[in-house]
């Protein structure tokens, strides 16, 4: 493994790197938002990004499936590889990349259509037309999202009629229907009730055997509970770019972090 210069690196877990980020800097026009990011995201693990508001964790997350491309004037320096392939390289189709690297947002955002059509949306877009095949994909995705039992008899109902927590799991099923390798979750539990939070957290533990998960969360306890590795981001001074301060095994970050700033943040001394 290449040594990481951008962050103190406590004892790392074994396993192949899914994403490898090296010397990444990110700019919104003239504004230098992120600097010197180096991180290996391990395959089939849950990685949590934590840090105070405005520390660049969501910006960094969006670099991983090129969602920032959609904002005019943004650019990156450095490299991000997914399974060894440069995702910003020539010939990479951002739409295909976003199929492989799916995203879940803070606010559940089902399409205004039936539960079935929500889940079938992606596969249809990728050319799957046969009803039998679609039925199978939809059922499987809903089962993986632990929603099947609750919705199997109401598949024609609108996705927006579900509760907030169910809507979030519907969105997860929608992403899973296109067989992603990675799931990026940006504050996925901030807008749902505690019981649903528990379900989404359980789901993450189940899904990580087949999908690599990266979660941005303001809730440190959630990061501690669900993740295998944790990255702490910080923008030290207003106007300066955010940095990755420390990255390592979650258990170690939460018992004996190497960097004083990490310790101050997780013990509630700032942020």
């Amino acid at each position, binding site marked *: 493994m290449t040594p990481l210069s951008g962050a103190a690196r406590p004892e790392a877990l074994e396993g192949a790197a899914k994403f490898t980020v090296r010397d990444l800097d990110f700019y919104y026009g003239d504004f230098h938002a992120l600097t010197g990011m180096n991180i290996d995201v391990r395959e089939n693990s849950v990685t949590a990004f934590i840090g105070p508001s405005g520390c660049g964790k969501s910006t960094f997350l969006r670099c991983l499936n090129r969602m920032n491309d959609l904002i005019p004037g943004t650019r990156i320096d450095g490299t991000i590889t997914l399974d060894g392939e440069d995702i910003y390289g020539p010939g990479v189709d951002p739409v295909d990349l976003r199929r492989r690297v799916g995203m879940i947002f803070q606010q559940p955002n089902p399409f205004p259509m039936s539960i079935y059509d929500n889940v079938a949306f992606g596969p249809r877009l990728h050319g799957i037309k046969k009803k039998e095949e679609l039925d199978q994909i939809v059922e499987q995705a809903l089962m993986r999202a632990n929603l099947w039992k609750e919705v199997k008899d109401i598949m024609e109902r609108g996705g927006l009629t579900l509760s907030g927590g169910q809507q979030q799991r519907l969105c997860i099923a929608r992403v899973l229907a296109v067989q992603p390798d990675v799931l990026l979750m940006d504050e996925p539990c901030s807008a749902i009730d505690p019981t649903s939070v528990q379900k989404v957290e359980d789901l993450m533990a189940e899904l990580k055997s087949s999908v690599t998960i990266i979660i941005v969360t303001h809730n440190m306890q959630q990061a501690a*509970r669900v993740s295998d590795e944790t990255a702490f981001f910080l923008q030290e001074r207003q106007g300066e770019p955010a940095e990755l301060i420390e990255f390592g095994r979650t258990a170690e970050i939460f018992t004996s972090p190497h960097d004083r700033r990490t310790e101050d943040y997780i013990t509630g001394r700032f942020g």
Partner: protein
Amino acid sequence: MREGYRNELKAIKAEVVDIGRLVIEMTRDATVSLVEGDVDLAERVIAADDQVDVRVLALEERTLETIATQFPVARDLRLLYSLAHVNIHMERMADLAVNISKATRRTAERTGPRTMYDLIRAQGNLVHRVLEAMLEAFETNDLELAYKLKEMDEPIDHLFKQFFRELSRLQEEDEIEWASSMVLASRYLERIADHAVDIGERLVYMVTGEFEAFDESVTDEGEPPAT
């Protein structure tokens, strides 16, 4: 719900029980080594202690990490908190078994009065019974059995006192030196049983949430601990 966390709680407890089995074995072997003058067996007990130390340390780290990342509350918190204590008791008991084995090193070349061997043997058997009961109670959360531990411990204390009476009858100086090592070993056995009684108290807290002292025990004897 939270299956990984639940499994980890079970695994941590299972590891404490497993260490407990090793400690029982060490105590039994240490006692046998003493009464039979078997230095090889004593050396094996001393070597096993390294294994206990490594496992106890690893378990402590694992417990701490679970507390830090999973935020246990109520009975889960009592379980982890108690296991951390029990873990320390196990480590001390293993150290005491090592002390007995070291007494074997000092005494193996000589012999002494038969009554002292008989006392150690009897005490060893009683301690073994207490340890087995402690581990069974701990493994199955059997409070009834936990409450019996103090009662089972009493004859062990009496045997220890009897040792002093035997000691006062000795005349020869080298015999006294030999007998002092045996008295110390008897004291270590007695303390191992005290640790087992303390584990019983922890078990009561773990299950009921009530702190309860079973009369006198390791922590309230009013004299410095032997380790």
